[in-house]
């Protein structure tokens, strides 16, 4: 045994003596995290305990985020396919509502917390992460700027055939962003029942209506 | 009973800068409680300051002054060791006086 080995053994022995239990494995730590989660929260208002039992999509993305290991391409595709299947076109066939109401929805961060009344009107939280109209200075930068969203994409008439692909994509993105990006940080507004179909139509108008301040 | 004020009085260049923090709700009278009832206004109305017992400043405040108010002002000629006393009175008739030495 050379000196360094001896030192390592000595240190290891000391550490073992100080901490009778060795460090658990990754799987054991995953289990411990689940146990601690179960002991650390209580239901409050509409925020029930089921909200800390993530679905498979979230479990996979969280693991990838935490370990820094990108999802296998096939796994990512499967997540996107699953979420794509949830997207419903508007029942009345109308993709765009009223941009003014869309602006109010984009401004509001209300809804779904334990202090919100169940069934109260939810907001879209949009300005928390995105620049949208130029007038609102208080916008977040977690998501890309949506200023001139329709204009930059050449949407002169949202009802035209040329605009159809971008209109449908935007509808899908608002309904369920994970259909296009497996681990997107954007909430699944339609799929998770955060915004109603009518509300999504209004936000669509905010982004795509040439009359909206977003496209001025 | 109200909590004490925090008074910092620092001498510089022949004057003393006084910084005061007061512990007070400063309820504006504009807000409603959970049942939609107006929460009555409750705020500091009068503030007075004295240097070594001699009044040097009076102020009248409205309900718009922020909760846990901050006030900064400057007393001429005050030097280290001088005593600065601040008194506030609110619209419920409560009052409080605290004192600090200029450092």
């Amino acid at each position, binding site marked *: 045994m050379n000196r360094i080995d001896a030192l390592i053994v000595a240190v290891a022995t000391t550490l073992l003596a100080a*901490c009778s239990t060795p460090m658990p494995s990754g799987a054991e730590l995953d289990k*411990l995290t689940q146990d601690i989660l179960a002991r*650390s929260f*209580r*239901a409050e208002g509409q*925020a029930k305990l089921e*909200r800390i039992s*993530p679905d498979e999509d979230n479990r996979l993305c969280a693991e990838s*985020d935490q370990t820094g290991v990108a999802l296998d391409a096939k796994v990512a595709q499967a997540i996107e396919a699953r979420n794509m299947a949830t997207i419903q076109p508007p029942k009345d066939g109308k993709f765009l509502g009223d941009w003014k109401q869309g602006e109010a929805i984009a401004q509001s961060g209300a809804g779904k917390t334990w202090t919100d009344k169940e069934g109260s009107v939810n907001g879209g939280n949009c300005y928390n992460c995105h620049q949208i109209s130029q007038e609102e200075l208080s916008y977040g930068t977690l998501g890309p700027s949506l200023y001139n969203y329709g204009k930059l994409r050449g949407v002169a008439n949202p009802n035209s055939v040329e605009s159809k692909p971008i209109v449908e994509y935007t509808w899908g993105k608002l309904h369920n962003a994970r259909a296009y990006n497996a681990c997107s940080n954007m909430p699944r507004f339609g799929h998770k029942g955060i915004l109603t179909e009518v509300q999504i139509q209004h936000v669509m108008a905010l982004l795509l209506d040439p009359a909206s301040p977003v496209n001025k | 009973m109200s909590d004490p004020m925090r008074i910092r009085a620092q001498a510089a260049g022949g004057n003393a800068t006084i910084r005061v*923090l007061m512990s007070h709700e400063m309820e504006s009278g504009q807000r409603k409680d959970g049942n939609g009832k107006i929460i009555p206004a409750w705020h500091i109305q009068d503030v007075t300051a004295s240097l070594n017992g001699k009044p040097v400043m009076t102020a009248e405040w409205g309900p718009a002054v922020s909760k846990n108010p901050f006030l900064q002002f400057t007393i001429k000629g005050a030097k280290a060791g001088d005593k600065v006393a601040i008194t506030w009175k609110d619209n419920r008739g409560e009052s409080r006086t605290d004192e600090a030495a200029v450092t």
Partner: protein
Amino acid sequence: MSCLNSQATAMMCPRGMTARIQIALTVTLFAWAGAAMAQKSSADSIAEYRTMLQDGNPADLFEAKGEDLWKQKRGPKNASLEQCDLGKGPGVVKGAWVELPRYFADTGRVQDMESRLLTCMQTLQGFNAEALAKTPFGKDEQNNVTAIATWISAESKGMTFNLSQSHVEERKMYEVGKRLFYLRGGSHDFACATCHAQDDKRIRLQDLPNLTKQPGAANGFGAWPAYRVSNGQMWGMQLRLNDCYRQQRFPYPLFGSEATIALGVYMGVNGKGGDATAPAIKR
């Protein structure tokens, strides 16, 4: 005098001003001179607003109250907290906060500042720690816990974070905290990491510290307890995390729960070497 200051502009020295007034005005007018400059970005304006708030943080009021409470004989046993062991031995307050959360042999748990205070309030003063943990924020003894935590943190102001990872329980809590940090859930699929795992991002106008590394971890973790301007309340880390989880649309984390303590370990260890700025003033 102030006119020679490198930050000063000609605007700070209007005619007729006496030298004496100039001195007194320096602090106040610094911001004013800034305001007079043309074409400032909104980010600059917000930074200026925050600077204006720094002088005169109402957290001072809570700090003073906390120190009083620490020394006061209170509770069923009519005792003070002066013999409380925050990790550096009974009664040692200075420097305690920058090493919390840590493992405590007497309780066999990793504890943060607030949960440790409950232990001391029970063992020394005879309060019921479980009942204190269940008391809503902002009510009764919870206010006192916050005030005491404010004072304890202030006693470490300017020191650098140095959390221990020598005990296996401390290392386990770091790993659990990391997993919790990335856990996506709630109606909106949010994790702590959604907002706090990148550099130079903001929500609305608020800068979001990247809590996974320095300097973000110490900037974020090291600022609480902080005075919240928006509601005029003093918030400890337990309430800070509670409201994060509320906005994440998660269920309600229990006061002093293992989950919130594990997150404290994760952030605190990530912030090693960073400055403790608490008690801060926040929007």
